[in-house]
């Protein structure tokens, strides 16, 4: 359903800060794939997700979604197909708007916005039920400004927003990394639930190898702007952290020692 063909991206081209972030990424996702993405710092994980979301244009290569070439489509237009949750809990919600207002914005993703009410009476009811299902007690604070919520609560709301209108593709970029372990687990479980209930296709970046093995049906490893390892099915289920570390060392060579700590 999603295909990346030889996607390249160089930041700050022609300057001293030139950085090859993607050096030719090839990746094909099938419908219903839930892929975990691992790799050391600077491997290009976030950059791949940003390339798919259209945060900036890629330098070369093509990105196809459901047989439509979306390479040239601006970010806001791709949003009709793509739901996203970011590492930074601040990034996915509008802090100065209420919980229900944020959800109402998300409920119109991919639809033309006109002079109709920004939020309707039925939506109030619907959002209440959805937020209640999160089981965080937020349903009684629907008119609270999102900026007053904790990071975990904000990520939960962002997850809900990303999936409110069923996306073709869900992109999760270390969306639990900024949370304490308990909250992180809660948000991760919620992600699992949302993905399986809606049968979503998803890419989830994580620094936690155990999580990468435990979640999803497929795992890819990135290094130096490339996908260097891609496993799925039984083989992935039987993976151990030590296997991944070994793979990683093979690919990354001497740099592996420092990155190893990050990965484990």
């Amino acid at each position, binding site marked *: 359903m999603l295909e990346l063909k030889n996607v390249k991206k160089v930041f700050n081209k022609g300057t001293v800060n030139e950085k090859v972030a993607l050096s030719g990424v090839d990746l094909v996702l099938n419908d219903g794939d839930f892929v975990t993405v691992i790799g050391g710092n600077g491997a290009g994980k976030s950059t791949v997700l940003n390339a798919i979301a259209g945060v900036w244009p890629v330098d070369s290569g093509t990105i196809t979604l459901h047989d439509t070439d979306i390479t040239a489509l601006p970010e806001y237009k791709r*949003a009709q197909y793509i*739901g996203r949750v970011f590492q930074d809990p601040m990034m996915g919600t509008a802090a100065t*708007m209420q919980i229900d207002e944020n959800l*109402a914005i998300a409920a*119109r*993703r991919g639809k033309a916005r*006109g002079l109709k009410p*920004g939020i309707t009476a039925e939506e109030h009811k619907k959002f209440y039920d959805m937020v209640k299902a999160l089981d965080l007690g937020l349903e009684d604070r629907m008119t609270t400004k999102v900026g007053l919520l904790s990071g975990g609560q904000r990520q939960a709301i962002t997850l809900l927003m990303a999936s409110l209108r069923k996306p073709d593709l869900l992109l999760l970029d270390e969306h639990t990394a900024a949370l304490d372990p308990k909250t992180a687990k809660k948000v991760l479980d919620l992600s699992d639930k949302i993905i399986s209930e809606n049968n979503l296709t998803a890419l989830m970046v994580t620094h936690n190898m155990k999580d990468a093995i435990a979640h999803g049906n497929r795992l890819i490893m990135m290094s130096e702007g490339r996908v260097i390892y891609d496993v799925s099915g039984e083989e992935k289920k039987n993976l151990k952290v030590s296997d991944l570390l070994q793979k990683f060392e093979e690919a990354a060579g001497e740099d592996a020692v420092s990155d190893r700590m990050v990965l484990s």
Partner: protein
Amino acid sequence: MLALLNALPGSVAQGLIWGIMAIGVYITYRVLDFADLSVDGSFCTGGAVAVMLMLGGWNVVPALIVAFLTGLLAGYITGLLHTYLKIPGILAGILTQLGLYSINLAIMGKANQAISVDKYNLAVSLRYINKTIIVSIIIVVVIIALLYAFFGTEIGSAIRATGANQNMARAQGINTGRCIRMGVALSNGIVAFAGGLYAQYQGNADVNAGRGAIVIGLAAVIIGEVIFGTKHSFATKLATSVVGAIIYYIIIAIVLQLGLPSSYLKLLSACLVAIFLGLPAIKNGIGTVKPDKED
């Protein structure tokens, strides 16, 4: 003291007209988080357009509507400069403001065009302060009601989301560039409308009418926030900006009564705004607040 009391109605009338201008500033400064300096130009444009049309025989209402539309256009150009050409917001506003100076002169044909309240049917005038206050209050109420309705719509919400968090807005399918253009246009439309009223109030359109307008608008917004706080509904916050403008003009009247030469007014305005903008930092102890990083 008596002189001050006599000056009070005039301050309220001026404050109300500038309060309408402040509502426009609120939309860019607070809703969009965009410091737009085009208003110095578009305030004057509104006055020039309204006065020239009325001198040409137009009725006051259509003249003010056209003033509003020219303001929209001016703001839209600032939005274009910023969103298409990626010119930083402040600079985009300055460019529009500078360009408008020539356009305002061209509209008026000279630096100042008088319009006499005796010969023309003006909406407001400093000769009729009570009427001015009543008319302005009605206009303020109507504008706040319309804006309240607009920012409750899907487009209005999208503009608010754009101002709050562009990343989130784009991830939710909002064309943030378009929202910025619409917001800045709307803001300048309102500012030009206020400029059209102000020219009538003064009895002339002047090419320097808008000089420092942004500072007065900001002062109004900030005085309103400092005095009444920010934990209010959207409509109330617009209203506190208007009250802020009135308070600003009362302060000016007091200072003038105390004997400050009027040539020092702009310096006074600048100091007032600096103090009110700096209040949070002052409260926290000067120097402990790190300067905001550029975005």
